[in-house]
């Protein structure tokens, strides 16, 4: 059972049925009848749009008509639909069977049809009231059928809103009485159940009951859901919900719980008792219970993984193969000069006189099985200037300092003065020669870190005068008169929230609250393109490590992949429940990671646009992501002050680094991946030992299969150093090619 799918298909089907029935003259009921089918869960779970369902719908309508003594309409409908008088009774008996038959559908086998059928049959007036009918009515798109609504709700929900606290209490008592080992797992049910029941009440305009329900039970929930509960408490009317997309999505998507089989059996047995049927229906409708075989999890294990808005990731959501290896570096002939005498020669060629080949990636000629094909996604070919850059890169890399627990990097901090809390984004070029800052006054400023000043290219007339054949033509094209330490780029009409340099240092991207992403040329320091697509603030943007592609993510919960020469996005990554706050490319440019305010991190495949990993565990919106240089691991930091380490290949959490006390806005791995640096709003930079953290991980088959791992509480041992700044929150970190750590932040006295 997939959580959210193409509900559109259903809606179309339902629309047809709607119009059909309207034409039958029973204009009143066009709303409710169609809905029992698919929109009972808000239209979000897959529904077999087969004739069986249509039949059920028709019969439901007939029942309703009969109840209200609209006999003529009954006749007309029956005649037109070709039903016989006997057909009416069958759904009733079927419902009883389907009701219990639908029960085992929840779970790993995902029997959508059955559960749906049970819901449909429940919708017929005869069956005991459940949440289906009221939602049926309410979810009919807000059409004004007040009399129908009133009738149906009055009928089917007699006492229902009042009963909700009783149901909840009953469940609570049961779970408290259960064995310890199961209790932790079953307690997971509380939060989603509470939220869904509350939203149900609100959606059906039972404001007072909703408030009472909230007051009574909100205190029981886990502490890390506090923010959500606060938002919920502000929504007491249906209209409030309409404005809040996140809550609407929450209501229509299924919250995923992972429960061991034993605990699940317990729960099921209890809820299938007669008096608990309602809760069972609610659970079936809103929760997706992913069952695994094995030991029930402990509270700490559950706590580590939970916290997101949609529950945890389903087991099969994280099963797709992810090519996390790196792409092969192309072979480049390196001209030898004297400086490289002591450089290592990995190919083992004895003679130094021969030009060395770039041996960074060519250790083995075989394709790394975990690496994607070179041509999996089209990548721009290397230009001559890129090759020169790479050679420069290699030369610098030979001077790289080896970091380790006993050899910590030096940290050079760039403080932005007089920013008045307006610094919203920072980026460094890869060779650390330029810094760009995005500000809340909608400007982008670029500074040169090296003594070399920033120059503009000459105008066309002047360019025609220079000698094109001279060796230093690249210097001559620059206009000396425009040399300055910094340049200001104007163009955005809102605060600039994301900045990214292109790897070849020609372009700069900036994303802003005005919904556009702008591409600036660093040769002329003017704006080249404005990419419009998000109509809402774009919180982050990033260039691909190979250039040409870039991603942006914003308030509209969608991340888009663009290429610089297309004015429309190439890929759209939709699936998050709340804003996307952080976007990052994988080093091999085939995958994109997005962190969101719904507290999950999703990994997307650039080729297909599918979500290949859902990683949960953070308890607050995620603000920083980092991939290790070998592409295998990922680190993420959020407002809860924890850094979580993930194994990308398996989709598992492999480490948790506690220590920061405030939001972590910057994360960076060192050039060889030995050290992870994290910078936070608590004015500190912390260094963590990643070699140790990843060494300790044992991933045997069991953990890979079930997906829960026991995290060692070793944050203290992994912490290599804490460096305080003078009231300057750290918002960006960057390791130079020689493994010097650069940090940036705005001085905030």
């Amino acid at each position: 059972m997939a959580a959210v799918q193409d509900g559109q298909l259903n809606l179309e089907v339902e629309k047809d049925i709607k119009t059909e029935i309207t034409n039958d003259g029973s204009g009143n009921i066009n709303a409710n009848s169609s809905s029992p089918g698919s929109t009972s869960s808000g239209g979000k779970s897959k529904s077999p749009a087969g004739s069986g369902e249509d039949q059920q719908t028709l019969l439901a309508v007939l029942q309703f008509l009969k109840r209200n003594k609209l006999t003529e309409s009954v006749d007309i409908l029956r005649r037109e639909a070709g039903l016989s008088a006997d057909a009416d009774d069958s759904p009733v008996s079927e419902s009883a069977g389907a009701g219990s038959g639908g029960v085992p559908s929840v779970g790993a086998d995902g029997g959508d049809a059955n559960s749906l059928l049970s819901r449909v049959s429940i919708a017929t007036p005869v069956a005991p009231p459940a949440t289906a009918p009221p939602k049926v009515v309410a979810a009919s798109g807000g059409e004004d059928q007040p009399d129908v609504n009133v009738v149906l709700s009055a009928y089917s929900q007699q006492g229902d809103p009042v009963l909700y606290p009783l149901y909840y209490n009953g469940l609570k008592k049961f779970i408290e009485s259960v064995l310890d080992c199961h209790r932790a797992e079953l307690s997971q049910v509380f939060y989603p159940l509470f939220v869904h029941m509350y939203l149900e009440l609100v959606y059906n305009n039972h404001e007072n009951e909703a408030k009472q329900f909230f007051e009574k039970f909100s205190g029981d929930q886990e502490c890390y859901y506090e923010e959500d509960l606060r938002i919920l408490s502000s929504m007491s009317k249906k209209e409030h919900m309409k404005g809040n997309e996140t809550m609407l999505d929450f209501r229509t998507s299924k919250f995923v719980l992972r429960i061991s089989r034993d605990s699940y059996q317990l729960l099921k047995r209890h809820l299938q008792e007669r008096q608990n049927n309602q809760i069972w229906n609610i659970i079936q409708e809103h929760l997706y219970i992913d069952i695994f075989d094995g030991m029930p999890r402990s509270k700490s294990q559950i706590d580590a993984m939970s916290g997101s808005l949609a529950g945890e990731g389903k087991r099969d959501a994280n099963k797709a193969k992810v090519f996390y290896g790196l792409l092969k570096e192309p072979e480049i002939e390196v001209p030898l000069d004297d400086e490289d005498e002591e450089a290592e020669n990995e190919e083992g060629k004895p003679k130094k006189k021969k030009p060395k080949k770039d041996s960074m990636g060519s250790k083995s000629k075989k394709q790394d099985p975990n690496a994607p094909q070179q041509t999996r996604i089209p990548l721009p070919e290397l230009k001559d200037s890129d090759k020169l850059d790479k050679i420069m890169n290699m030369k610098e890399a030979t001077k790289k300092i080896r970091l380790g627990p006993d050899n910590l990097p030096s940290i050079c901090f760039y403080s932005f003065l007089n920013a008045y809390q307006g610094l919203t984004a920072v980026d460094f070029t890869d060779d650390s020669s330029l810094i760009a800052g995005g500000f809340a006054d909608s400007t982008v400023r670029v500074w040169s870190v090296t003594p070399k000043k920033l120059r503009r290219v000459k105008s066309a007339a002047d360019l025609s005068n220079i000698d094109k054949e001279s060796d230093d033509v690249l210097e001559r094209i620059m206009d000396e008169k425009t040399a300055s330490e910094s340049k200001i780029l104007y163009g955005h009409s809102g605060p600039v929230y994301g900045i990214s340099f292109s790897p070849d240092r020609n372009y700069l991207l900036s994303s802003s609250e005005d919904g556009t992403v702008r591409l600036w040329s660093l040769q002329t320091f003017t704006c080249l393109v404005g990419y419009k697509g998000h109509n809402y603030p774009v919180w982050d943007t990033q260039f691909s490590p190979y250039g040409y592609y870039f991603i942006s993510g914003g308030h509209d919960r969608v991340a888009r992949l663009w290429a610089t020469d297309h004015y429309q996005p190439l890929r759209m990554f939709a699936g998050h429940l709340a804003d996307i706050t952080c976007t990052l490319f994988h080093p091999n440019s085939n995958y994109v990671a997005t962190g969101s305010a719904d507290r999950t991190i999703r990994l997307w495949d650039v080729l297909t646009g599918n979500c290949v990993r859902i990683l949960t565990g953070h308890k607050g919106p995620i603000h920083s992501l980092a991939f290790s240089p070998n592409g295998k691991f990922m680190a993420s930091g959020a407002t809860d002050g924890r850094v979580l380490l993930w194994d990308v290949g398996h989709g598992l959490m492999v480490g948790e680094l506690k220590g920061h006390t405030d939001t972590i806005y910057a994360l960076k791995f060192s050039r060889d991946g030995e050290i992870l640096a994290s910078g936070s709003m608590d004015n500190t930079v912390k260094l963590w030992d990643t070699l140790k953290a990843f060494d300790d991980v044992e991933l045997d088959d069991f953990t890979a299969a079930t997906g829960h791992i026991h995290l060692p509480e070793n944050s203290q041992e992994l912490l290599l150093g804490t460096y305080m700044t003078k009231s300057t929150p750290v918002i960006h970190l960057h390791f130079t090619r020689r493994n010097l750590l650069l940090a940036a932040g705005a001085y905030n006295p």
Partner: protein
Amino acid sequence: MRGKGTNVKMATPKTVPKDAQVMIQILKDMGITEYEPRVINQMLEFTYRYVTTIIEDAKIYATHAKKNNVDADDIRLAIQSRMDQSFTSPPPRDFLLEVARQKNQTPLPLIKPYTGPRLPPDRYCLTAPNYRLKSIQKKMSSSAGRITVPRLSVAAVSSRSSTPTFGTPSVQSVTTKVGTQMSLSGQRFTVQIPSSQTAASKSSTPSTPTVQNVLINPSLIGSKNILITTNMVSQNLASESLKRKHEDDDYDAL
């Protein structure tokens, strides 16, 4: 969280107006504990403006429906229309999923090699000039030896010291009275003898007004391989008769 302390000075109740007290309470209920004192004023202003707008709109709807009093339906309608207009929210998730599914079906386009800076077609870029140069040729009917100096006076062009060339003009359309050549690099106004044939430039006969389309090779923009082309790439003699009705804007000679 309360331990962190607030920046708000809780004035004694008799000096803080009731609205402000309510706003302070709202902020507290929503869990916001630290805020600058002016935030309350901003929130109150917003509230006042919003409520006034809604009520005014509702009044309009009520009069339109020929009702004497404004009732709840009017308010509801006013709120609804204001929500759709100003406070829009992002599209719902199923819609996004559907759109994404369609978009993701198309394969990634192949990348053409050796194309210089990879930018979208010119009309989607911001590289075109957002101004037009006008120049008036005075007494141009006589021809040959005359040097006419057009003054190109346009507000935006005055940025001579900067080089808007690469950033801005990729297509420049210049209306000239006579095809005087001007260097459209934007920084200097070079004077050229109208009837002379300067190399690589096109001059038209004095009598014919010309519209020139000057194209600067887009590959000039932002790449190290700058092709130095002269800015007069082509001259569009064909459209000469269509334009050039603006006799009135006479600009002085430089």
